[in-house]
């Protein structure tokens, strides 16, 4: 608009800081992903755990490491790093208190190390949901708390930076990529209150012996208060890229700035008061409340359906601009040779099936068919392990060259890496979905379970086979990252990678102002959480029974 936009060059120090986030993220992914195939191989009877027993004691210890490192650590570190960049680059100004963000980051690192110690010593084999009364070493709970608190502090750094920017730019629409980052962080602050209360009021004092027992159903309810929006904390940075960056990378524009913003607000509004849809089969929660959460879950599917429309429309614009003709010709015309674009497109394609499965899971009584079966594991490998993880891999194919100034190592291999992940995940996840429908439980070494019928064996083998392909995919990713980050192959001055920020088809200033105002949306969010959780949580608190000792 009329305000002249200053150009802001991200400094070397800022790039280093963001790069450190990625270092820890990819380190966690490298270790955590090694356990995934061990689980998958066990399914078809190839149990490698006895060979590593001096170090790792059980399938379940491996499963805990896989869940914590991949689903919690890889995501959180990647996201905080990536969002730092989108805040700085979108607002075109440095962080207002860079020291605050550094404190947040190093708090997360200390938390990670504190969590890792009991995990590696087999003193926190409680899986990544850590349901009591299974009890972990108190270090595990302390470490997790520090990771969460650290991420909160980094979030405060974003909010203060936004406030400073807002003072400097009254009346201007918040640049979309920064807007999306701020909502993601706001969502996270609200969502994590659940586990924060769970750990600080029950699990930590209990693991330290200060109280004798916990109330496991209350703990589950706190956990899923966080557990579902956690999924959106993972997903929204991928959406940020699909809406705000991928159109640019594909040679087009964001189709609708307004609907992109509306979708983000609706995620903030609706992603917390839906946690009971993870507890449909739980005792202790009335059916009426479960149904309300089911209905609200359909509500949070709405912004995902909007996303499907807007992202596809943006990509179609790009494909047609590149000469794509006909109903689907534009798909072929997209730059599939760009590893960052192809990885994100493939992630998006599989996410369609992840979304359909998610609506199935949310469907109240239909959930009885799939709850705690292998179906669920198949489902979240399409969401967090593909829509999110494969998108993050795609993002890192431009982000690491951008941060280091180095040329991406073997771009064609990077393209292949995305396809390998895609194919491996189709095989793995389809087999897991089918097994779930046949009744196979999750979190179970099916290769040695006594009740497994012969008819499952073909699917169990496909799980192992898909897992093997995914192992190749993750190794290739890590190798490309390492070779790029520690390369001597510098990009020339006219080859520098830029942060791809898509323009909107229409001037964002045309976007209605209510889509850029925080107060009404925050008030509505808090109100809906109070309505959706307040009465039931109050009832559970008034009837609390701290009767479960640790096991």
């Amino acid at each position, binding site marked *: 608009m009329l305000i002249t936009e200053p150009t802001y060059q991200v400094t070397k120090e800022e790039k280093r800081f963001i790069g450190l986030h990625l270092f820890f993220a990819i380190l966690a992914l490298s270790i955590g992903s090694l356990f995934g195939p061990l689980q998958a191989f066990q399914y078809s009877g190839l149990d490698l755990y006895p060979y590593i027993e001096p170090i790792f004691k059980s399938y379940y210890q491996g499963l805990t490491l896989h869940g914590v490192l991949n689903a919690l650590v890889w995501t959180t570190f990647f996201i905080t790093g990536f969002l730092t960049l989108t805040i700085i680059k979108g607002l075109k100004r440095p962080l207002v208190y860079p020291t605050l963000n550094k404190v947040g980051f190093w708090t997360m690192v200390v938390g990670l190390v504190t969590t890792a110690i009991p995990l590696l010593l087999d003193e926190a084999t409680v899986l990544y949901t850590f349901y009591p009364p299974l009890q972990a070493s108190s270090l595990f709970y302390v470490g997790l708390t520090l990771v969460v608190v650290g991420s909160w502090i980094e979030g405060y750094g974003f909010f203060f930076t936004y406030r400073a920017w807002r003072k400097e730019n009254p009346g201007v629409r918040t640049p979309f990529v920064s807007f999306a980052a701020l909502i993601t962080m706001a969502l996270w602050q609200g969502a994590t209150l659940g586990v924060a209360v769970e750990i600080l009021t029950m699990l930590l004092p209990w693991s330290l012996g200060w109280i004798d027992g916990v109330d*496991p159903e209350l703990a589950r309810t706190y956990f899923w208060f966080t557990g579902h929006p956690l999924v959106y904390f993972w997903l929204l940075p991928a959406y940020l890229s699909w809406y705000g960056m991928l159109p640019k990378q594909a040679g087009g524009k964001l189709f609708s700035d307004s609907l992109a913003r509306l979708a983000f607000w609706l995620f903030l509004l609706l992603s917390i008061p839906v946690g009971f849809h993870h507890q449909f089969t739980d*005792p202790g929660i009335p059916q009426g409340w479960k149904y309300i959460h089911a209905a609200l879950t359909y509500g949070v599917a709405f912004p995902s359906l909007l996303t499907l429309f807007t992202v596809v429309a943006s990509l179609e614009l790009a494909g047609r601009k590149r000469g794509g003709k006909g109903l689907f010709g534009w798909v072929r015309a997209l730059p599939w040779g760009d590893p960052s674009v192809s990885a994100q497109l493939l992630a998006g394609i599989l996410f369609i099936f992840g979304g359909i499965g998610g609506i199935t899971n949310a469907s109240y009584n*239909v959930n009885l068919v799939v709850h705690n*079966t292998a179906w669920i594991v198949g489902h979240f490998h399409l969401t967090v392990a593909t829509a999110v993880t494969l998108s993050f891999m795609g993002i890192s194919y431009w982000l690491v060259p951008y941060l280091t100034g180095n040329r991406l190592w073997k771009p064609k291999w990077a393209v292949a890496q995305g396809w390998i992940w895609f194919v491996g995940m189709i095989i793995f996840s389809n087999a897991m979905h089918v097994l779930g429908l046949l*009744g196979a439980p999750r979190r*179970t070494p099916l290769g040695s379970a006594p009740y497994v019928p012969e008819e499952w064996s073909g699917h169990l083998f496909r799980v192992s086979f898909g897992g093997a392909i995914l192992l190749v995919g993750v190794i290739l990713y890590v190798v490309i990252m390492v070779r790029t980050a520690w390369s001597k192959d510098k990009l020339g001055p006219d080859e520098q990678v830029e942060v791809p920020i898509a323009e909107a088809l229409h001037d964002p200033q045309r976007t209605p102002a209510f889509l850029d105002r925080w107060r009404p949306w925050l008030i509505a969010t808090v109100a809906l959480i109070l309505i959706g959780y307040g009465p039931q949580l109050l009832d559970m608190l008034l*009837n609390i029974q701290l*009767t479960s000792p640790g096991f």
Partner: protein
Amino acid sequence: MTDETSSAGSPGPAETHEEGWIDPTERNWFRFSIVLLVAFAVAVGVAGFALGFQVPGDEARVDPRTVADEAPWSDRIDNPVREVAPGEYVVYMIARQFRYEPNTITVPEGSTITFYVTSIDVQHGLKIQDTNINLQIVPGQVSKLTTTLDKAGTYPFICHEFCGLGHAGMFGTLTVEAGEG
């Protein structure tokens, strides 16, 4: 096109009703999505609350440290299946590391059977294959669900929540005996 005041000035009510911020095709998709999701919500609601395809609800609280010795669970081994009315059976079950009590259940074909399950240690699961029985078993709470067994056969029931190192071996058997005709 929008004018300068409504785009960059202080936001007023007129601006929130600005024409054209949403594309017509988008608006159709918007409406289609809402209709679809409302239809889903109505369908599962009717199936759940009117047709009886229900999930467990809030049943009762117990003390996991003592419940195994208290009626009606204390009688679970000697009297695993209780007929409360012709063709209607009730099972009071305890889930524990790493077995169910009772571990084998036998009922005639066509029975309606209601489970009341709780745990005396950690969380467990109970999934009876090929039925709608799928329960999270939480210490301190009673999980209740009913099913009708119309087909004779053997139905394994298995623990689907990680409960410790013996988890994968935790299962039992429900036998539905063919009726006498």
